[in-house]
């Protein structure tokens, strides 16, 4: 397939409206899709254009109606058994066809694994720009979408513009944009469209799916205190110790990627550029060196406490408090002293407003 416009400038003005790609899961929208609707609404309102959700799937009409309540003007539904689960080729075909058919000016995706898998393939066949993992959007003086993304692990923020090609496409990082409230009375249109799909588009087969199960308790991205463990733990069993600390403080356990990749803790506990972003009141980095990719997911925490053997570890550079020492001695001692302090008192963590 070639680009949808041979001379990039030609026909740029035919592109209109903002689209958000909606990802469904188990009959609900993924949280990143809901957050995208909120941000898409803001961008669409600034340009005075409609906001459209695109939902490829199977039996998703009810979900499409529900999605409108978050702030969409309409939802384009492509319903086909082949779209039951996310698959690169048929989803790319559906999006490429719809974009060529309707010419939206802006298309936004969640920066999920599937969102990136889709966007990467799609932008190449459409020959248009795609900015990854954006954390902020703006409109520049010429009316282009200013797509703002962290670069080099958050050491800087790059403003990406796609001036001559349309649509302007971007993926947005999860949990950066606020989820809008749901208004069940909101009116919007559900438009059913068809795209030719056949068995030939089924070039990959899902053999097995093993869901990550998150044990009970608070999720790190919702917790006020996060106790995060890294490769310095040396063994998965020490996450139990971190859990004790987290329980004392009413918090949740998380991990660096190296701890996750070592198989010590499931992937959904990973903090960082390729994991989740957390912004707790207090973040404990225990046996974590502070690689840029890790910092990308936690550097906006209100307070950061680092415990590390190595006084030169990068994590100390962004820590409010640090103990240079052996975590196997420091953490049990910390737990002991906290228990002493807590004896007969309420929660240990004060409300945010009182933090100096």
């Amino acid at each position, binding site marked *: 397939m070639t680009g949808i416009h041979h001379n990039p400038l030609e026909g740029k003005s035919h592109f209109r409206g903002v689209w958000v790609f909606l990802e469904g*899961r188990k009959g609900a929208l*993924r949280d990143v899709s809901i957050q995208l609707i909120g941000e898409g609404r803001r961008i669409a309102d600034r340009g005075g254009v409609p906001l459209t959700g695109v939902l490829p799937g199977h039996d998703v009409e009810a979900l499409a109606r529900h999605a409108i309540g978050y702030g969409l003007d309409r939802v384009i539904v492509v319903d086909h058994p082949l779209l039951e689960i996310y698959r690169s080729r048929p989803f790319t075909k559906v999006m490429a066809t719809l974009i060529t058919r309707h010419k939206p000016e802006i298309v936004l995706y969640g920066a*999920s*694994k*599937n969102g*990136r*898998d*889709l966007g*990467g*393939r799609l*932008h*190449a*066949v459409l*020959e*248009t720009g795609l*900015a*990854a993992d954006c954390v902020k959007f703006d409109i520049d003086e010429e009316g282009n979408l200013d797509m703002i993304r*962290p*670069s080099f692990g958050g*050491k*800087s*923020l*790059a*403003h990406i513009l*796609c001036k*001559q090609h349309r649509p302007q496409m971007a993926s947005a990082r999860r949990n950066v944009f606020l989820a809008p409230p749901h208004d069940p009375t909101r009116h919007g249109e559900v438009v059913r469209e068809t795209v030719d799909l056949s068995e030939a588009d089924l*070039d*990959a*087969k*899902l*053999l*097995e*799916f093993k*869901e*990550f199960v998150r044990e009970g308790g608070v999720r790190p991205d919702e917790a006020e205190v996060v106790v995060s463990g890294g490769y310095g733990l040396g063994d998965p069993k020490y996450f139990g110790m971190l859990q004790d600390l987290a329980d004392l403080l009413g918090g949740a356990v998380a991990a660096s990627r*190296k701890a996750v*990749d070592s198989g010590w803790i499931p*992937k959904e506990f990973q903090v960082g*550029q390729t994991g989740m972003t957390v912004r707790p*009141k*207090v973040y404990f980095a225990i046996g974590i060196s502070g*690689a840029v990719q890790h910092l990308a997911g936690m*550097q906006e925490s209100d307070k950061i*406490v680092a415990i590390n053997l190595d006084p030169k570890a*990068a994590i*100390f*550079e*962004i*820590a*409010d*408090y640090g*103990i*240079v*020492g052996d975590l196997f001695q420091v953490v049990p001692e*910390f737990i002991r002293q906290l228990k002493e302090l807590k004896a007969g008192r309420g*929660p*240990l963590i*004060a409300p945010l407003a009182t*933090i*100096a």
Partner: protein
Amino acid sequence: MPAGGPFRILVCIKQVPKAQELQVDPKTQTLKRVGVPSEINPPDANALEFALRIKDRMPAEIIVLSMGPTSFDESLERSIGMGADRAVLLTDRILGGSDTVPTAHALSETIKKIGGYDLILCGEETTDASTGHVGPGIAGHLDIPQITYISEIDIVDGKVHARRTAEDGSEWWEAAMPCLVTVNFGCNKPRAPTLSGKIRVKRGGVIVHWSCADVGIDPNKVGLKNSPTIVAKVDTVHLPPRARKLFHGEPPEAVAGLLKALVEDGVIRP
């Protein structure tokens, strides 16, 4: 699969500055890149390791492919040292400033010229551009199946089986070849270069340089001016300075100091 030819694996690697060593220049507010040592983009080294493991089990030929300046030879030599058979560097001034659209185009054209491939491995993303868009872009151009974010791979009855890490779980996918996969950082331990590998590099002839003209790449499709996106500006992030209160000494003292500070600062309720 190409009839008769050897099982051919292509690995796309990029050379990147070592992320840990990058610092923002306080004066110019730009990233200091000069003098920063380079490495194979870490997940690309994991991709190469998977290719080598396949070759450990069955006859295969591994060709490493990269697009960039001739300084990238350093990483290509390392790849040969690790056990790759040959390497191709697409190097041409007109490629400078390419974003992911021309990069995916140029790499896929180079792959077509190499031909006869069964499996293409890429890294999940680069540490300098961190988009993860080039791999799927190549698969789109070649119109072949893609399996992204994999952490295990196997060849079963002439098909690729790969375990993909998605948000909510792990998925096992099967795809016919040729197929492109993108490999997660850290899912294996890349082997060190061997002496015999280094000797092969020394003997020469295993790394070739191609220009756009050699491959037949249209100059109007690559480079900065044919890239849909531009970086309009870069803001340095000024994170609020942190107190960096350090507590040393024996654990009981250090912890007591920390706790006292946490209470005094109102983080922990007095």
